[in-house]
């Protein structure tokens, strides 16, 4: 069932209070973040329709926004999502090698999820960590100055969390 808990509904109400009367559409981006976190790490049509109802929007107003921003996943992703930056400054510091290494290590291509549903690998464009390259986003955090050893450690950390 796609329904926020009472606690989450209170949070939604609080977010809406940040904007002028009748401008609750402004809450769409934050509420989509919440929904993605709550309902399996991605936005299904059902989830988006639920958010539309919550904010009194037409479903299309939600779809067009969800499809515009790269942080919203419109397809299921693995339990652990690795988003590795590949833009100029990261490339200068060896992001290509890191991406190749993760592909090899997880035995998947970019955009794919491992068969056990644990890992998804994505490449992303500049995340604002250029001085700490190469880097990736994992959950809410950045993992920076990546090396092969660090990648190994992160993968082990994820596996430990899943056990």
């Amino acid at each position: 069932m796609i329904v926020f808990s009472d606690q989450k509904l209170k949070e939604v109400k609080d977010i809406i209070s940040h904007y002028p009367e009748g401008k609750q559409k402004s809450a769409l981006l934050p509420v989509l973040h919440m929904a993605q976190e709550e309902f399996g790490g991605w936005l299904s049509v059902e989830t988006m329709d639920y958010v539309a109802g919550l904010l009194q929007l037409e479903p299309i107003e939600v779809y067009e926004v969800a499809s515009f921003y790269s942080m919203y996943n419109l397809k299921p992703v693995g339990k652990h999502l690795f988003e590795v930056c590949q833009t100029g400054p990261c490339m200068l510091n060896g992001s290509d090698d890191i991406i190749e290494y993760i592909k090899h290590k997880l035995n998947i291509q970019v955009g794919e999820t491992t068969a056990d549903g644990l890992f998804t690998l994505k490449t992303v464009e500049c995340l604002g960590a250029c001085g700490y390259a190469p880097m990736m986003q994992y959950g809410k955090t950045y993992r920076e100055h990546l090396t092969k050893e660090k990648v190994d450690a992160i993968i082990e950390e994820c596996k430990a969390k899943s056990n």
Partner: protein
Amino acid sequence: MTKKILLEKIDVPGIKNYEVYRREGGYRSVEKALTMKPEEIVEEVKKSGLRGRGGAGFPTGLKWSFIAKPEGIPRHLVVNADESEPGTFKDRYLMEFIPHYLIEGMIVSSFALGSNVSYIYIRGEYAWITDILDQAIAEARQQGWLGKNILGSGFDCEIYTQRGAGAYICGEETALLESLEGKRGNPRIKPPFPAVKGVWQRPTVVNNVETIAAVVPIINEGGEAYAKIGIGKSTGTKLISACGNINKPGVYEIDMTISVEEFIYSDEYCGGIPQGKRLKACIPGGSSVPILPANLLLTTAKGEKRLMNYESLSDGGFATGSMMGSGGFIVLDEDQCVVKHTYTLARFYRHESCGQCSPCREGTGWMEKILKKIETGKGEMKDIDLLWDIQRKIEGNTICPLGDAAAWPVAAAIRHFRDEFEWHVNNPELCLQQNYGLAHYAEDIRVPVA
């Protein structure tokens, strides 16, 4: 050595927290500002010569003076924390380690502009920084710096954070406002400008994080004192985020009198290039600004030492100069391939184009394809001319500056490194195995270690 202003207290233990920040002199500018008239604050900012630190360098006081004041319609300050220009990570540093600086600057600026509800629009990926800011806002509110009737002045102010969700285009101010309204980040046609019709059609000022933080010392010390730092129209200090092939990547605060050479080679800043390699090229102000080969980077076409400021970095126009931009300083050493680097930037702009204007939507993808073709040894000579042609047709033909931002890096790469593109075409096998070596370069590109 630069006298630090924004980063002066960054190493004080616990400066992230309210008590320490306050003990170190924080929020003094709010106490002072609330005894002034809003117009007087705008006047101080004008006197300071402060220019927008997000990239465009527009005078902040002037921008503030444009805000419309129609009767009965609320006005808003929106801080642009959507830091997404490749090479740029300075605002993140400020917000993560000394968040109250931004909140303090926002209260003063909100008072000057008459904004009772102000927003920080922060890029979605900076999720943990949003938590830090929310914490700082809660502390400030608890201490009476936010809320109703601040310090008994009769001025009410609230600050809210709003996370984006992964879109470079939302750093463009009208796209940012669309996004804040819960829409796709499609830039608006100007006019009307945000100062007249911004968020929810209300008068709005959008300023970069660093710009708003700089308001704090301007109010504390006075606009004239701030204007004395720096040189010419580059007043005050600037945060530079340095990355690429340097020994000490990071965020540095500079007064804008130091030379580019000193910035790269001095131990106080970038500390030179790893393994003693030679400097090949540099993008001095974020990925959108023109790349310069080492010789033009360090010395202007007139033969003067190039300095780290707005005027000097743009000296010579795009023919032989570049721009200060956002302060994202990307260094390429002798082993790097300009074609490949430019390809990654073209891919970035294709990914980030909102798709509204045909020249940008089609042109960015086309440039990416051609650059990939050349980079992987499948290019032809006519592709180089085609690439030049496409970028010219994007520049100036789009609603927002993303078109220009996508065109300029490609144009500059061809302008200064055409031989490298040709080498790729002429050596299809070789270019897959090695980058265009510095053996091809004249000795004059060699730079003595400072």
